């Protein structure tokens, strides 16, 4: 691979959108193999004129690692001083080759080709001086900053040329280890969902470095041709070193070094600082007792298990047969009689009896998943969290939820359901309780209770979509209407929504995905505006939408939004219905349309939310309602008083008749008296 050009393109190049106000992406000049598994292009620093940069195109549902970007990139880039590493600089959106917008991570470009380009057996001296020491130095610096690399593999490590030290490639544009093959990762990481491997520890990088050393020592990738699952099973069954080395012979120095680096237990691997002195690292031998094999295996599904480690893996990956053998007591018998591990059998059976005998009400799936999770944690304390066939490290939960949002993968619906059930049952807490002092190393970023609370917040302010944005600060908005845009920050949201509304007049510009995005990224005021969307399915009222849009405009984008204004004008009658007085609505309508045409949503909201006007309207409507009630009561009385009026008419009529008769009598008597 040729080193990317070091000259700034001529001014005749078409104007490009700048990332971080400084970097442009030249999509006409791809850099094959440089992006650590992602497409990479030449990036140009138009601010400081830096050269040797690349832009790695980010996948929409595999978010960039924010901590690495914050710690190594931006203002910290100049002083991070890790020369053996391709450090990130900035992150932002730019036009991608397909014409749509995509996220790009600006990163240092590799100095030369990847080691995989010309793979050959390396001499031990070369390995130690040109690979181990520079990589260990980079890992040591990362560890000091609380970071991990999680992308060390033969095609993501580069060097400028023969005799030059290696440089670790870009591993920041995806979740940790998301693109790592099973061969490069410890089996307890490889068995996890690619998006759920978590940041892990620097010991995981040491393992990957060990695999790289072995690959270079052999001159070829070990276990090539085997499936990912088979590689993981062999590592668990035989131990990583034995599985990877196989029948090959290694020098004693390298073999001793790799024994430590490829240890199954992360605590047994040498730290990077120790690897800077390979002789010292070699001498540090932590005795890891190999798992004892039973004379007779136990069959779980299609897997033959000889020891608890493989048994735990079988139960974790095949939940249905695993659950069956756990409940029938076959596992306990095998542990006791076959393996001779009575205490482990007793512990496991206690847990099965206690937990299995007390199912959660109306939640059989959660009960079974919890039982499986506890069984795996007891059988193999090094294993990741296993929940209903899904294996993950809790610190990878956020990126897993982000990956679940991808609608192009049908299996994500089921996956999201399992994740939601796990959070609902707060499985992480139960898992952590079985790991003792190992929990701290991979503790979840957010407390399980917080996740549970966010999951069950009503409306679009809660749920997995909200969690995806909350746990992944750089995940772009995944709203279907914003497919062609890359909106990772709230400031970019309104222009994108306005552009989407210009293309097609929306029923509701703020869909559930957008609302969840705003709730996660915004302040309390915006979260409250999202909460007003309510928890009812179907379209949200235009007033709630306008309130959110106006607040966003006030905070992040004071410029006009004509297309969204046109949407407001379409729903003017509905918006004006906040006022109950028809004359008031008629009076305000022209003003509303005028503000809508100028795209000033904030002023529009101010008019509709004016406290005095609303107070007057409320007062007047209360008076009108009282008058209406009075009229209704009179009408009711008129209708109800029919019989009373009939009785009154009868009485009056009879009195009148009697009066006439009396008058006639009196008159005739007077006439008779007068003669």
């Amino acid at each position, binding site marked *: 691979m040729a080193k990317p050009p070091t000259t700034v393109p001529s001014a005749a190049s078409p104007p490009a959108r700048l990332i971080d106000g400084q970097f442009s992406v030249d999509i006409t000049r791809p850099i094959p193999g440089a992006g650590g598994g992602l497409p990479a292009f030449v990036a140009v620093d138009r601010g400081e004129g830096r050269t040797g940069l690349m832009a790695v195109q980010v996948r929409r549902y595999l978010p960039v690692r924010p901590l690495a970007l914050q710690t190594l990139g931006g203002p910290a880039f100049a002083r991070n001083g890790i020369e053996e590493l391709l450090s990130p600089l900035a992150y932002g959106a730019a036009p991608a080759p397909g014409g749509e917008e995509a996220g790009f991570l600006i990163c240092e470009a590799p100095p030369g080709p990847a080691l995989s380009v010309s793979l050959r057996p390396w001499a031990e001296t070369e390995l130690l001086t040109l690979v181990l020491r520079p990589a260990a130095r980079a890992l040591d610096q990362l560890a000091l900053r609380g970071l991990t690399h999680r992308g060390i593999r033969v095609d993501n490590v580069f060097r400028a040329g023969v005799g030059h030290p290696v440089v670790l490639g870009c591993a920041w544009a995806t979740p940790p280890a998301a693109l790592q093959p099973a061969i490069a990762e410890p089996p307890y990481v490889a068995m996890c969902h690619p998006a759920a491997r978590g940041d892990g520890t620097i010991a995981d990088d040491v393992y990957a470095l060990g695999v790289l050393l072995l690959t270079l020592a052999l001159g070829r990738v070990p276990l090539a041709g085997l499936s990912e699952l088979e590689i993981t099973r062999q590592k668990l069954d035989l131990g990583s070193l034995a599985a990877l080395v196989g029948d090959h012979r290694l020098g004693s120095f390298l073999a001793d070094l790799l024994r430590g680096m490829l240890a199954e237990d992360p605590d047994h691997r040498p730290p990077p600082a120790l690897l800077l002195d390979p002789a010292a690292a070699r001498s540090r031998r932590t005795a890891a007792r190999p798992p004892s094999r039973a004379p007779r295996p136990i069959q779980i599904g299609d897997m033959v298990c000889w020891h608890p480690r493989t048994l735990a893996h079988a139960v974790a990956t095949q939940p249905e047969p695993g659950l069956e053998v756990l409940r029938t007591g076959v596992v306990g018998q095998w542990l006791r009689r076959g393996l001779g591990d009575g205490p482990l059998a007793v512990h496991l059976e206690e847990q099965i009896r206690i937990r299995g005998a007390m199912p959660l009400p109306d939640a059989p799936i959660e009960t079974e998943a919890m039982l499986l999770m506890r069984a795996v944690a007891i059988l193999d304390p090094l294993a990741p969290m296993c929940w209903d066939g899904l294996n993950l490290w809790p610190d990878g939960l956020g990126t897993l939820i982000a990956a679940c949002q991808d609608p192009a993968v049908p299996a994500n619906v089921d996956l999201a359901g399992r994740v939601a059930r796990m959070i609902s049952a707060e499985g992480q807490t139960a898992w952590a309780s079985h790991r003792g002092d190992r929990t701290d190393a991979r503790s979840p970023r957010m407390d399980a209770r917080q996740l549970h609370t966010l999951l069950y917040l009503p409306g679009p302010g809660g749920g997995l979509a909200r969690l995806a944005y909350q746990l992944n600060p750089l995940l772009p908005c995944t709203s279907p209407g914003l497919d062609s845009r890359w909106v990772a920050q709230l400031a970019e949201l309104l222009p994108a929504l306005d552009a989407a509304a210009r293309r097609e007049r929306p029923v509701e510009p703020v869909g559930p995905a957008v609302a969840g995005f705003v709730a996660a990224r915004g302040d309390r005021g915006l979260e409250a505006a999202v909460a007003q969307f309510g928890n009812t399915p179907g379209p949200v009222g235009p007033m709630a939408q306008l309130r959110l849009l106006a607040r966003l405009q006030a905070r992040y984008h004071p410029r006009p939004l004509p297309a969204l204004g046109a949407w407001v004008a379409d729903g003017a009658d509905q918006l004006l*219905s906040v006022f*109950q007085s028809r004359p008031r609505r008629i009076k305000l309508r022209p003003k509303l349309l005028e503000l809508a045409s100028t795209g000033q949503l904030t002023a529009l909201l101010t008019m509709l939310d004016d406290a005095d006007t609303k107070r007057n309207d409320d007062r007047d409507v209360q008076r009108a309602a009282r008058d209406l009630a009075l009229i209704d009561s009179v009408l009711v009385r008129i209708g109800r008083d029919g019989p009373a009026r009939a009785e009154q008419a*009868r009485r009056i009529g009879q009195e*009148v008749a009697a009066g006439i008769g009396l008058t006639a009598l009196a008159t*005739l008597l007077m006439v008779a008296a007068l003669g």
Partner: protein
Amino acid sequence: MAKRTPTTRAVSGAAAPQGGKASAIGWMQGLACGGLVAVLPPTALLLGALLGPALAALFLDRQPGKPVARSVLLFALAASVRPIRMLWVAGHTMATSIVLATDPDIVGTAWAAAAAGWLLAELTPLAVRIVLEAISRAQATRLLAARAALAEEWGLDKKAAPPG
């Protein structure tokens, strides 16, 4: 036999004085009529003939206060003033009373007056009711118009439908 409750005893106790009062009035009316027949037989004969329909109305009218009979009686009495005066002018004899009581014009006039009294007692309530209903309808129409205007102006149409 069912045992009488205190309530039924109280009701029957209250009805007893009213029945006694009506009976006393009846006895007094009977005594007056008897007195009239005994003291002024010609007048009693003539009145008996002329007020026959009124007496029948008094018997038939079961309404409290006998409003129809009262009207019939007043009209019949008004029509009886002239024949009674003629009887007394003619010497108040039995023969004159019989002549007058059998005169179709006199009896017809008295009975027609009684009929007019009955008709008036029946029709006047109807006429009054028509007037009262017309007044109520006019008021309801006016109120409904006011209500519709109010509801339209304030958008209260859907919140409160008019009664009835």
